[in-house]
C-alpha cells in the first residue's frame, strides 16, 4: 500500500527529537485523535523506527504500515486504538 491509500487524520514530525521524547510526542498526538483515526508519523531510521512502533503497539494502537522514504526517514501509519 502507499501513503495515498490511507485516510490520514493528522501528521507529526519527530525527526528533531530523540528517545524518549519521540515516543511521548507520538503518544500525545495519537491520543488527541478519536478511536479508529489515523496518524502519520515522520521519523528517523534506527532507534526511533525500532522503538516508537513497538511502544505505540504496547499502548493499544495499531501500526498499519511503515514506508521507507529512502533518505533515512520513514513514514509510520498508525490507527488509534480504544482507551
Amino acid at each position, binding site marked *: 500500500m502507499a501513503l495515498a491509500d490511507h485516510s490520514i487524520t493528522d501528521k507529526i514530525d519527530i525527526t528533531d527529537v530523540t528517545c*524518549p*521524547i519521540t515516543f*511521548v510526542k507520538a*503518544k*500525545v498526538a495519537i*491520543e488527541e485523535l478519536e478511536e479508529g483515526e489515523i496518524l502519520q508519523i515522520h521519523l528517523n531510521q534506527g532507534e526511533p523506527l525500532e522503538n516508537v512502533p513497538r511502544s505505540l503497539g504496547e*499502548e493499544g494502537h495499531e501500526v498499519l504500515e511503515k514506508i521507507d522514504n529512502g533518505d533515512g526517514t520513514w513514514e509510520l501509519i498508525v490507527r488509534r486504538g480504544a482507551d
Partner: protein
Amino acid sequence: MNITVIIAASLRTFTNRTPEVRLQADTVGDALQALTDEYPEAARGLYDENGDLRTFVSVYVGDRDIRSLKGVKTALKEGDEIYLIPAIAGGACESVISTDRMKAVTIEEKEIRRYSNHLQLKELSIKGQKRIMAGRVFIAGIGALGGVVAQHLAAAGVGTIGLADAESVSLESLQTQTIHSTRDVDRPRVSSAKDRIKKLNPLVNTVIHQEKLTADNVEEVLGDYDIVVDATDSFVSRYLINDACILQRKPEVFGAMFQMEGFVTILGYGDSPCLRCLYPSPPPAGIVPTCSASGVMNALPGILGAMMAAEVIKLLSGSGEPLIGRMLAFDTWNLRYHLVHTVRDSGCPVCGANPSIRTVQDMDYEDFCGLREDPDEEPIEGIDPEELARRLGNNEAITIVDVREPHERAIHKFPGTLIIPIGQLARRQKELDPGIDTVFVCKEGKRSILAIRTLREAGYTGPMFTLKGGFDAAAQIIFPNEGAWL
C-alpha cells in the same frame, strides 16, 4: 498456644463485626481452622472453592507475611498475633477532576518535554497529566512538610497551587524546610515558597494566602480548590481544616510527623474516615510537645512530604490505590512501617449520620483544643525579658526555674537557674522559696504556663511568673553578648 487473630475491617462482615478473636493454635493453619469453626462464614472470605487461601487476603504473623514464612504450616508461639489484611483494601478511586476539565487542557510543545516522565507512564499518561494540570491544590502550612509537597506538585505541573501560612522563615527551621533558602530568613514563608515554585516551574499558577486559617476565613480561602493538603502542626488548625473539608466535600491529604515518625492518610473521601473519627479529641494542651520543643530528623519531611504529594497525584489522576481507608505509619529511624486500616465512625459529629457540626462557626477550636483560658481560673502572670534582666542586674532575690528538656539546655544554658523537669515539679516544690518570686522558663513560654498550673494544683502558694516568649525571646536580652544558638 494462646493466639490473637486481628481481623481487618473489610473482613469483619464474616466475623459478626468482631475485630479480634482469641483462640488456641500451634500453627497458622490451626488458627484459621479454629477461626472458621467459630465463624463458619469466615471460610467464604478466606478460602476459594479449592480450599486454598484466597490471594487477596494477606496473613501476617507479627509483621511477617506467612508467604515469607512456612505458609499455613508456620509455627506459632505463645502470645503471637495474626493479622488478616485484604491486599486490595481501599481500591482505585475516580479522579477528583471531571472529564470535561481534563479535556479542556491541551499539552503544548514546551509541556511535552517538561512533563515527559509522567507522559511516558501508562498509569498517568496523557489523561493523567492533563488532570494534574487541571488540578487546584491547596496546601495549609508551608514549613517542612508543606514545602516538600509544594515543590513536588509544582514540578508535576499542578495547575494552581494555593499556599497558606502566616509565619516567616526562621534560621532554625532551615534544617528541615528545604523549600526556603538562607537568604529568605525573615521573609514570609508564602513569598519565599512562591519564588521557589516560579523557578521550578513557571507554568504553575501560585496563589498565596498570608494569613492564619480561622473559622471566619477558612471556607472562603478553600473556595474552589479540588484537594486540600494539611501540613500544619497544630491541633486547632488540623480540626478546623478537617471540618471545613468535610463540610465542603473536599478530599484532604493529611500528614503529621514527630521526631522520626511519620503518618500519612487521606481523610473524608470515599470510605475514608475524618480526623474526628480517628481522634475524637486532641490531647490536652501542653501534653504533646510542639515541633519546636521536640525536633524532627531532617530527612523525614522529605520522605513524608513526597508520599503526600504522591497521594495528591493519585487523587488528581484517578489512578493507583490512594490511602483511602488506610493510614501509613512509619518510623524512619528503625525502618518499620505499618499500613493500618482506618474506619469511619457513624456517630462522628462532623461526617457521621447525624452530624452536630454543620458549619465551622459552630465550633470554638481554641476551646476544643484546651487553649482557651478558663475565666474561673486564676490568671497567670508573665514577666518580660527586659524586666527580668533589670531585676537580675539589681541582684534581686529571685528564683528562676528552667523546665526545658536536657537537649534544649544543651543548646544554650541559662546559668544560675534551678533545673526541674515538669514531671518532677510537684515532688520538688520544697526546693522553691514561697517568700520570693519564682520565674519559670521554657523555650517559647508555653510549657512554663503548664508548670505554674501544675504547681498550683500541687498546692504551692508562692508568687509565680512565666517568662514571656520563653528562652527564645530572652536570649538576646539577657545574654546579649552570646550567640543565641551556639
